[in-house]
């Protein structure tokens, strides 16, 4: 008698996009009731592998077996029929519809023209209580919290009969407490026999939640191991292929003994924001009376769960969004209504969150992107005539100083890797020797090596006396670099903490809007 085959078995999967091999000879086995982590850096091939499983990509080689039978996964429909469900990082929900309506969307089994929402609601309630998911089928999606919407996505997959549940970076949008809640749900689902594939690059979460880990590196399986037999450090090495440690403020202080973190307290204020209010197109106050200060030579971390107004706040500071009320001053000058150009002239450098649409002009060459902010000044231009040699010189300098790897300064920015793109953004902004750096999610989508580079650059600006406002939803990033941490919740600054007083517990409570 042979052992029962695993619920899911992928063997020898190979996916190629032109000359680029995204998955090469990848094996993945997941048993019923198992929580399996798929770990890897950006571009390691995690998403590609999961898109194969979801029926969105047909591999050029390899086979997928469900319960031991080879299945020709060619379409999302096929995947659904086989019990494969995916919770995407960006939710696929219609905000104006109710939970029940969203769950039934596209399901002929609930009635093609007049869906029987009452019956569906009963089934949803039943499913939800069975898996202890708190969900009201009649609630509108728009009224739910992010964690609530995520539960709806999970329920949607279960409603469609998912036995294999894929979650793509599910904790990116959650507070630490909400993450714990999600983990409880996933453990319960696994206990009931669901196979769970948990995609992440956060090592501590993978260690806490999963039983088995498959590490992907450059499209291949670097290792498959039991969580109990490994640790975060070994996993990091497997992901990157080498030992990489992210720099912290402590390293910086160790290198500069006179830096005790107090000398900055009396430093000159570089950025002062008071009573700032910004509304979105619907008139909702996204920033609602926020006040903060950043001094010279300090990194101020702005922590908060995604969508609490931190993006809008940063946009208002750099001049991309109009302030309805309040005041913004850079180095003492009121810039609330000033142009972006004026703010740049006062020493502002912006590392935007959205590399592709805000920071870079992707169809343009690297050299043009580097010259973007300075094209009107000598030596890059005189009397409106561009000095191409001067542009080439600046590009060569910045590319060397920031280690931008490309075929040359003429390569278009859009064809570079995320890490190299971010180096252009950093190089352009930081080579101007700015006095204020507003960095929003500066390491988003970067691998560990590139992240370390970005963090070192921010620490270097701090050492050079610049004020740095670091806006991030990654607590690890904030904790590693910040002299002070501010917490934003629903458009307000709800808490402040000096580095020595930091506790993750308190931070988490503040991020959830609970007084701490």
């Amino acid at each position, binding site marked *: 008698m042979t052992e029962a085959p695993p619920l899911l078995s992928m063997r020898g999967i190979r996916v190629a996009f032109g000359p680029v091999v995204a998955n090469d000879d990848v094996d993945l086995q997941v048993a019923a009731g198992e929580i399996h982590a798929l770990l890897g850096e950006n571009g390691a091939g995690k998403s590609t592998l999961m898109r194969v499983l979801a029926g969105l990509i047909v591999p050029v080689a390899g086979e997928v077996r469900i319960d031991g039978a080879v299945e020709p996964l060619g379409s999302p429909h096929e995947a659904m029929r086989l019990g494969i469900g995916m919770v995407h990082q960006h939710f696929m929900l219609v905000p104006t519809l109710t939970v029940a309506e969203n769950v039934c969307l596209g399901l002929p089994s609930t009635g093609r023209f007049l869906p029987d929402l009452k019956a569906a609601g009963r089934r949803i309630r039943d499913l939800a209580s069975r898996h202890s998911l708190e969900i009201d089928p009649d609630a509108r999606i728009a009224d739910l919290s992010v964690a609530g919407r995520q539960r709806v996505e999970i329920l949607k997959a279960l409603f469609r009969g998912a036995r294999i549940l894929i979650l793509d970076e599910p904790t990116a949008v959650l507070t630490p407490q909400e993450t714990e809640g999600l983990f409880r749900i996933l453990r319960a689902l696994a206990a009931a026999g669901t196979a769970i594939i948990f995609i992440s690059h956060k090592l501590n979460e993978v260690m806490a939640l999963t039983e088995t880990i498959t590490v992907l590196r450059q499209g291949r399986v670097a290792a498959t191991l039991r969580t109990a037999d490994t640790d975060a450090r070994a996993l990091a090495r497997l992901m990157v292929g080498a030992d990489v440690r992210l720099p912290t403020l402590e390293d910086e202080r160790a290198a500069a003994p006179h830096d005790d973190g107090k000398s900055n307290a009396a430093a000159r204020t570089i950025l002062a924001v008071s009573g700032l209010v910004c509304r979105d197109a619907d008139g909702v106050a996204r920033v609602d009376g926020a006040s903060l200060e950043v001094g010279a030579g300090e990194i101020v971390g702005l922590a908060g769960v995604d969508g609490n107004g931190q993006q809008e706040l940063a946009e208002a500071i750099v*001049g991309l969004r109009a302030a309805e009320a309040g005041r913004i001053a850079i180095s003492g000058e009121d810039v609330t209504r000033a142009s*972006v150009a004026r703010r740049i002239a006062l020493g502002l450098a912006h590392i935007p969150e959205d590399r592709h649409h805000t920071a870079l*002009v992707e169809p*343009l060459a690297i050299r043009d992107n580097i010259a973007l902010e300075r094209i009107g000044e000598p030596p890059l231009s005189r009397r*409106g005539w*561009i000095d191409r040699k001067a542009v080439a010189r600046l590009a060569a300098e910045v590319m060397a100083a920031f280690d931008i790897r490309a075929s040359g300064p003429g390569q278009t920015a859009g064809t570079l890797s995320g890490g190299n793109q971010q180096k252009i953004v950093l190089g352009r902004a930081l080579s101007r020797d700015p006095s204020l750096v507003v960095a929003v999610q500066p390491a988003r989508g970067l691998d560990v090596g590139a992240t370390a580079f970005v963090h070192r650059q921010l620490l270097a600006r701090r050492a050079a006396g610049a004020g740095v406002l670091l806006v991030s939803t990654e607590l690890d990033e904030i904790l590693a670099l910040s002299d002070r941490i501010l917490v934003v919740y629903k458009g307000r600054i709800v808490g402040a903490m000096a580095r020595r007083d930091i506790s993750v517990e308190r931070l988490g409570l503040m991020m959830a809007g609970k007084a701490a």
Partner: protein
Amino acid sequence: MGSMNAILARLPAGLAGSVAAVLAAFLVGAALIAAVGVSPVTAYAALFEAALGSANGLAETLVRTVPLALCGLGIALAFRAGVFNVGAEGQLFVGGAAAGAIGVAGAGLPSIVLLPAMALSAMIAGAAWSGIAAVLKLRFRADELITTIMLNYVAIHLVSFLLHGPLKDPNGALAQTARLTSDGRLPVLLGGTRLHAGILIVLVAAILAHLFLWRRTEGFRLRVVGLNQRAALNAGMNVRRAVLIGFLACGALAGLAGFSEVAGVQRRMIENLSPGYGYTAIIVALLGQTSPFGVVAAAFLFAALQIGATTMESAAGVPSTLTTVIQGLVVLFLIGRDAIPLIGDALARLGDALARLGRKSA
């Protein structure tokens, strides 16, 4: 705005795309010619023989190139700024009316004063007309795709009203201005043909546009704004200014086209000054990849098509409207180039499916 970005994003990057689109369009055109029972070779030979094969044919092609190229250059500059200005037709009419009015009023002035005055007033009038759409966009966020096309009708009817009224030749019966004196006409370059100095204006305009786009900071900013407004804003650029420049440059160049038609071809302002140059020029700008010299080349090609069409009809019996079909096909192939790999994919899948079926039945 969104629609135009979608179109621009689909534009192939290089010259190869344009050449391929033209060849594909001619290929389909050949099939259509064959379908009416004529040899495509005969028809195309007749077409190009008429357009390029004689001094007079070539001169006519160049004369036709002038308005297409000037409007195309203007539209290309607007596209580069992210402005989908399809109002060149109206701007051409307004410019032509201004040139005609000044030309008649200034009769007696020496050519060296009169011609520049006519050209300048045509450019100002065209730019001002385009400026209406610019204000509507910048102040009220009105989509220029709609406003410029609507303003075309307003312009054409306004000019028609002027030609029936205040600008009408008092000694004539038709709705047109009085004939320009010889000082108000562009000199003929080649005796015995209609080839006038407008073609030189085209060359100068193309060189200036090229320098502007690639050597001037304003041109750099214009291109950045057209490619990515948000990044331009983030880099401290004045986006509204670049957009305004795009509108005004288009209007001025289309107005100049109106001037050259009035001073070089018609020798007066008439009601039917343009058979749609401003619209054809949109295709010209796209086919020329919005690069100034490319636009001039594309204008020449389309001019040749249009000039050769009538001869092709009389000599080979192929309807001259075929050239309109070819022009349309060029656009389709330019925009649809992305679809080619998709079609390849679909064919490959079909092949796979058939092979699988074959195996099963075997």
